[in-house]
């Protein structure tokens, strides 16, 4: 059995959700089946400009075939088209024009799939919303498996995607909520789909003391890990946290790890440390009272799984169905919809070490039951075997 993974970008420097998800799954599945990755030459997800050379290379043992992007994206034009299709009546050809502009438009990749798709037993596409998935799945629907990594994003309601969701042989969902959303939109209940998600790598050793020494952090702290961005709910988090500090006089700090695309308010208890290596990240997470996840849109939060893998509790934004659902299923974290709930939940968590420990233990159990690599790999193999048996 030979399998191809198709993703918009691929590389060790790329930390984006779906791309990292694809790389981790590919590297783990390589132990079970021969596979290769088909991707573009892009590194930057804003313009998809060609960065890597066209052709083959090996990354962590995985053969990667890169195809050039025919034309880079013009962000302003893309924004204009997106506004038009989201806010005005439009036709299917407008949606296709939007897809073409969104990219990464790699005609060579699609041509390769049409010509050589027969050489693979299955082709697994990551991220439903990009050019490669739409045209790739249409090229070889009978061999396609889609990992949609879908969020509650307005573009998911586009007509072209409703049709797309009825085409693949199978789905690999990230969460129950994602499956319910896609099935609700496209009525594709007849297509097999398994909730799998992704595993996470926990380093063998981590110490909070090392992190505290290195970055001069004293006293209790809560942590946010990820891109500091409006889409991730960070402005609301800053607002809530500073209000919480004013009202409760709590000594807790908020440590922020990740690159920022917006201004972090200047406050002695807001510690923005920038992007940190994995080792530092896990050191920081292990010493935190809890992980806070303010994002409105997530298809699966890897960092929440990492927190649970370390036995840390989570406080999540309940406006994100996936995060709320995961907290409820795992009993590993609390959630909030407004400032009042944020204040009460955070106060309860900070003042009740026993509750933190209990939620952390539940989270760890949930992680061990659903998200260790053995389980994730097993689920992928089960899907491939089931499809093989159905042939």
């Amino acid at each position, binding site marked *: 059995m030979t399998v191809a993974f198709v993703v918009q970008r691929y590389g060790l420097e790329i930390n984006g959700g779906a791309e990292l998800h694809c790389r981790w799954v590919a590297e783990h599945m390589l132990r079970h089946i021969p596979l290769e990755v088909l991707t573009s030459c892009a590194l930057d997800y804003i313009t998809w400009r060609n960065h890597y050379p066209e052709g083959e290379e090996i990354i962590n043992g995985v053969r990667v075939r890169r195809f050039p992007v025919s034309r880079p994206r013009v962000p302003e034009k893309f924004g204009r088209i997106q506004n038009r299709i989201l806010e005005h009546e439009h036709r299917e050809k407008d949606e296709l024009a939007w897809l073409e502009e969104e990219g990464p438009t790699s005609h060579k990749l699609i041509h390769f799939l049409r010509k050589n798709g027969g050489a693979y037993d299955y082709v697994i596409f990551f991220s439903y919303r990009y050019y490669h998935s739409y045209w790739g799945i249409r090229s070889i629907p009978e061999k396609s498996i889609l990992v949609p990594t879908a969020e509650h994003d307005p573009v998911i309601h586009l007509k072209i995607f*409703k049709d797309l969701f009825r085409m693949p042989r199978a789905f690999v969902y990230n969460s129950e909520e994602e499956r319910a959303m896609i099935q*609700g*939109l496209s*009525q594709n209940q007849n297509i097999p789909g398994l909730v799998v998600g992704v595993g996470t790598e926990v380093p063998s050793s981590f110490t909070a003391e090392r992190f505290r020494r290195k970055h001069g952090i004293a006293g209790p702290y809560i942590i946010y890990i990820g891109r500091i961005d409006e889409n991730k709910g960070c402005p609301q988090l800053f607002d809530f946290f500073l209000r919480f500090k004013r*009202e409760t006089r709590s000594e807790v700090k908020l440590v922020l790890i990740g690159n920022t695309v917006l201004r972090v308010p200047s406050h002695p208890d807001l510690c923005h440390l920038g992007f940190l290596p994995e080792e530092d990240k896990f050191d920081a997470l292990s010493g935190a009272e809890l992980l806070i996840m303010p994002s409105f849109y997530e298809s699966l939060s890897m960092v929440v799984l990492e927190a649970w893998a370390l036995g840390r509790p989570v406080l999540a934004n309940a406006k994100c169905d996936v995060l709320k659902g995961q*907290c*409820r299923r*795992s*009993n*590993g*974290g*609390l*959630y909030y919809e*407004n400032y*009042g*709930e944020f*204040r*009460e*939940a955070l*106060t*309860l968590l900070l*003042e*009740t070490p*026993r*509750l933190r420990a*209990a*939620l952390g233990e*539940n989270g760890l159990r949930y992680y061990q039951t659903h998200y260790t690599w053995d389980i994730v790999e097993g689920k992928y193999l089960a899907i491939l075997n089931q499809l093989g048996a159905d042939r």
Partner: protein
Amino acid sequence: MDNPKQTEKQGVEAITIDYDRVDVAEIMDQIKKISASAPPEEANFSNDVSSSFAPAASPGASGIKDKIRAWMTSLIRPFFPLIRFIGLPLHQDIRATQESLHETNKRLDKLTEMFFRLEEKLDRADRDLNTSMEYIRLLHNLDHNLVVELTKLKIEADTLKGKFRILEKDQDQLQRRERTLEDKMIQ
């Protein structure tokens, strides 16, 4: 032995947690109730009127201004009890305003909840609409296919009618020929 069901005091409110079987949904229900019924934050007025009413010193303020402010403060210090007394009704006004704001907030929360429920209903309606649109599209395809099939049948019928007319003519011709042959044979 510890009772697994413990009450953790949260200010004036209490949250019950069963540590043998921690249920996040149950805890969140209690947090939601507390959050919904929380009184407005008490205004944290200081007893020291001078610190309450004195404007914060700006970093760029000149030394002369500070001196004048200190001199003025020392001058009015004996009248602080009187100022506090005058300030009392103001405090009550603020409290009354806060209570009214709290009531407004509660109403807003209710409206927000109604809005969310409405949003859910709209989502459901949207899903139903999508399904209906899909059915309509299928029916449209069916109509189209029926029209194509009927057109084909019409053409087929026309062709068969043509063939039938040809056969009739052939039969007439054969009958005429038969009659001619009979005449000739009789002659």
